[in-house]
């Protein structure tokens, strides 16, 4: 018997509405634990090379982790993994909220969705029962409408639901999967679910954690809560939310502005002050019992961007609709991000692809007719919500942009690629590698591309001087290093990535590591729950194994060293702003940092492929 895991996964075939319960070997759980780890193994072993991500051959893995639970601080988390229709590579998307804990409570560790339904349906899993329900009537509805209608049909307001919006129905490659206002935003999970004619998954369960050693578990839990109670980081997240970083990141040169033309704008302080006075309502927990509660409730009371109270106003989303598009109207930004969530569109990619369109329009790469007669001038707030709707509905210019900046640039041609800032096809988020060089390596080498989750440790280490307890594993004290320095950053990246991927493997929110919960704490919790003797360093090994399997997934899809790149614009001198004359922010030897990184990883320096010895060391011989 394995405590904490049900040792079962449910595999659902949408082709014929069948499902089966499968037993998972204990050794597999020990090696991959859950979340993006277990999903990496499943997708690498079960998907064929080169499949169309929007075909029935793709699979969606709903993967909580062993620590996903209302009882564990940060345990409101789930990962959805798949082959990305945006990038053609490894796709994963994390979502906070109640869905993860609720899925675990149904008695299944993982949910695997396969095939394609002949008609629109939604899935309802309640404890171990599975129902397929017709969903024609949900088509064309917003995310909150779908959520409300499903809850009414099932006569239960507590049911947790993840659904696609109109963007997912239209196979928009930057479509998100939504759990109310929480998003599995990146890489196009919404399009994959839409391609399967699956509109929503609703879950409700009643199982509870049954620790192997309750005393050890409760003791560790008490210690974790004490750390959180005393943590300045936890307090800051609660008090200011992620949006509280606007002014600091702008000042740090960590705020990509005007489609990455600069890393600083000098406008964030004013925007943040406006938000505090006019848009902020209160903070909010993303799942039942979250002790950090970094979420924000926001609103726009009146005017053309009038927006009801909703959960939003988060750093990345607001940055995408202010700095990215050079927009000074905070009401417009709040409204546009609200629309993205209601239509099921990734806010980061949506803001980025609009910024790309603005620049293409400026350089006459898109004609007035091609942009539907809209005035795509920088800072024109009025067009932002219009563009969001067009993208979600694939209307006019929106149809071109719905496939993301990389594919749109290829279609436009004539040099449009120089304005398409992405990594592996994923639009860059609101952190700039010119502000700290470790971020360049984490951006370039992240398996899902230029995202804000895995590479974030680069910025937090270099500029925020955060350690996450990783100095115990040989990471130098960041206070001894200059953020501008390039030498040595490649090797540090390897260990940070191995450790900082673990929240996404364990099924907990990454912010709790920022708040002082270390790998050793997680190892203690996991040991108490499962009875497995696990130390923090063992988790580092799992992290390394997972990164290598994801890497192998990408290698099989044809990705190599040439894809571990940083867009030229994000390496060069900012065209304006406070860092325009700061030579140190220019990235001078990215290739040198990459060499260091490959060496530390045990990957071939020419191809970027994990070598045989490394795979053997990680118990992955069978994948060579």
């Amino acid at each position, binding site marked *: 018997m394995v405590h904490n895991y049900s040792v079962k996964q449910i595999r659902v075939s949408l082709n014929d509405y069948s499902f089966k319960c499968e037993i998972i070997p204990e050794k597999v759980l020990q090696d991959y634990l859950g979340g993006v780890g277990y999903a990496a193994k499943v997708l690498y072993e079960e998907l064929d090379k080169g499949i169309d991500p929007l075909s029935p051959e793709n699979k969606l893995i709903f993967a909580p982790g062993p620590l996903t639970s209302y009882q564990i601080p940060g345990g409101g988390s789930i990962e959805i993994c798949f082959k990305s229709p945006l990038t053609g590579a490894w796709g994963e998307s994390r979502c906070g909220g109640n869905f993860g804990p609720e899925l675990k409570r149904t008695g299944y560790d993982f949910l695997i969705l396969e095939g394609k339904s002949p008609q629109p349906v939604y899935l309802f899993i309640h404890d171990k029962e599975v129902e397929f329900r017709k969903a024609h009537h949900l088509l064309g509805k917003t995310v909150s409408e779908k959520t409300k209608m499903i809850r009414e049909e099932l006569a239960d307001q507590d049911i947790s639901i993840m659904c696609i919006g109109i963007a997912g129905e239209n196979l928009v490659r930057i479509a998100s999967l939504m759990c109310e206002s929480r998003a599995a935003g990146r890489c196009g999970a919404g399009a994959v679910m839409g391609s399967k004619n699956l509109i929503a998954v609703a879950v409700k369960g009643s199982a509870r954690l049954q620790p192997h050693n309750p005393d050890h578990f409760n003791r560790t839990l008490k210690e974790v809560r004490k750390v959180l109670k005393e943590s300045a980081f936890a307090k800051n997240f609660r008090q200011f939310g992620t949006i509280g*970083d606007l002014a600091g990141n702008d*000042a*740090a040169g*960590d705020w990509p502005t005007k489609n990455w033309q600069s890393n600083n704008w000098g406008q964030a302080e004013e925007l943040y002050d406006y938000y505090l006075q006019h848009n902020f309502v209160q903070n909010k927990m993303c799942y039942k019992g979250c002790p950090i509660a970094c979420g924000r409730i926001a609103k726009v009371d009146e005017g053309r961007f009038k927006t009801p109270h909703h959960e939003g106003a988060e750093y990345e989303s607001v940055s995408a609709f202010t700095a990215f598009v050079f927009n000074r109207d905070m009401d417009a930004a709040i409204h546009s991000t609200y629309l993205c969530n209601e239509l099921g569109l990734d806010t980061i990619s949506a803001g980025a692809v609009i910024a790309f369109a603005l620049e293409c329009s400026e350089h006459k790469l898109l004609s007035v007719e091609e942009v539907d007669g809209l005035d795509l001038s920088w800072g024109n707030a009025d067009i932002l919500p219009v563009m969001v709707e067009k993208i979600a509905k694939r209307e006019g210019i929106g149809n071109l942009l719905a496939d993301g900046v990389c594919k749109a640039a290829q279609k436009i041609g004539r040099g449009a690629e120089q304005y398409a800032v992405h990594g592996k096809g994923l639009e860059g988020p609101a952190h700039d590698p010119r502000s700290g060089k470790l971020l360049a390596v984490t951006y370039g080498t992240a398996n899902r591309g230029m995202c804000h989750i895995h590479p974030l440790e680069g910025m937090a280490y270099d500029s*925020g001087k955060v350690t996450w307890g990783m100095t115990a594993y040989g990471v130098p004290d960041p206070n001894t290093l200059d953020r501008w320095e390039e030498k040595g950053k490649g090797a540090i990246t390897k260990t940070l990535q191995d450790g900082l991927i673990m929240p996404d493997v364990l099924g907990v929110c990454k912010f709790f590591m920022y708040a002082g919960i270390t790998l050793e704490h997680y190892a203690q919790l996991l040991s108490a729950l499962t009875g497995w003797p696990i130390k923090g360093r063992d988790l580092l090994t799992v992290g390394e194994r997972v990164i290598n399997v994801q890497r192998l997934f990408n290698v099989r899809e044809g990705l190599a060293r040439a894809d571990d790149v940083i867009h030229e614009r994000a390496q060069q001198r900012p065209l304006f702003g406070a860092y325009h004359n700061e030579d140190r922010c220019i990235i001078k030897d990215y290739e040198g940092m990459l060499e260091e990184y490959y060496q530390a990883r045990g990957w071939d320096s020419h191809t970027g492929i994990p070598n045989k010895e490394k795979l053997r060391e990680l118990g992955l011989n069978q994948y060579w």
Partner: protein
Amino acid sequence: MKVKVKLYTILKKYAQGKVWEDNSIVLNRDTTLQELTNYLAIPSNIGLIFLVNNTPQDKEYKLCDGDEVKIFSLICGG
């Protein structure tokens, strides 16, 4: 010399009792930004970003009379 100092978000509490309501503070001539943060008792393990007259500066920068200093820390959220 007299300079203006503005602290943001999580750093605001370090202004209490040391920075006047109009954001001014009196310092010895040639005080560096590092010395200013020591005086304000901002913990040394917090990553700080400095703007002086809206230009980024390192902690070794020597302040001049009339400078306007902004000090930021990062919450490090996504």
